[in-house]
């Protein structure tokens, strides 16, 4: 068992509404290991309206 800290940025897909965002983030992070603790720590918006999610987490890889 080894704990790893990570930070990831994901474009927020236009077809993912807020009520599905939690599950969507979990799906992205699940590819890296067993999720122990995570949070969406920033949402960056660009001029064209696109949004980028910053997620920080600790996983058990």
């Amino acid at each position, binding site marked *: 068992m080894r704990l790893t800290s990570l930070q990831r940025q994901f474009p927020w897909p236009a077809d993912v509404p807020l009520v599905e965002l939690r599950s969507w983030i979990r799906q992205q992070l699940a590819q890296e290991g067993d999720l*122990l603790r*995570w949070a969406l720590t*920033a949402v960056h918006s660009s001029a064209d309206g696109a949004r980028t999610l910053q997620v920080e987490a600790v996983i058990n890889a």
Partner: protein
Amino acid sequence: MPTLMLVPTGIGCDIGGYAGDALPSARLLAAASGCLITHPNVMNGASLYWSDSRVLYVEGYGLDRFAVGDWALRPVRRQRIGLLLDAGIEPELAQRQIQVAEGCRASLGLEIGPVVSTDAPLEVTLECGASGASWGRLGRPDALLRAGERLKQAGATAIAVVARFPEDPESDALAAYRQGSGVDALAGAEAVISHLLVQRLQIPCAHAPALDPLPLDPKLDPRAAGEELGYTFLACVLVGLSRAPDLVSAHRQPGDLDATQLGAVVVPAGALGGEAVLACLERNVPLITVENPAVLSVTADALGLSQGVLQASSYSEAAGLVLALREGLSPASLGRPLPALQRLD
């Protein structure tokens, strides 16, 4: 009306970012709601604590599972608290922890025991994320989980864990925290430790760091003072765990509390990116955001939440909103101008 109060750990909230300094706000929200579910970061003031039967003390991992709907909370009269000590704690400092536990048995009547030490030092390290939030890890999670499993097998129904934390008494970050302007650097690693135990054992757990006493700081901020009154941070954890609800995932009973019963969630306005808040938004739990500055800016605007957010400028105002919801009053009717009715064409 069951209400969830969240002040995320390690993000430097003005209220709740220090040593249990969101406790007065939690007491007020407990009185307004009649049932407040909150987490150790809100309730733990090291040597300072407050016990209120209307407050359910739930560690962050369990709180997330509750909000998502995976687990329910089952109120209990008492827990039997096993004490888990990191083998990396020096003998004298470990003895201080045990004496606090003995004191809580003798003076508060808590049921505590047994005590177990890990079979290897936990090797806690502190980290800071790009956001400025504190995070952390431990090098020997396996040793932590082995000790936790021993305690559970020995009859503990909750676990207080004390880990040796690295010290840097000269650091600028510590000085800023003590003077009321920084992020609690320990908090992120503390959360990782308790999350690991709750994830594996599904019983209430909470953490206190083991640290040497600091030299006197005449400029100490009152919000950090709870951590400088004694030799340990353990008393509040033992008191909180003593009546923490069980975490149940099957065989629900009458009286169990689940997320469908939540009447509101109260959270700092810039800290809407945690799993519990996002889960509450999924089920349309009324969201009350409180002006409580921190290092994060995951606001309602950032998430595109245009409607349905009740904004409060203080926890006093939030308590009024909770009371309104509890009484079935429309919060909109309490403000002026009153928006005109919408007509559907």
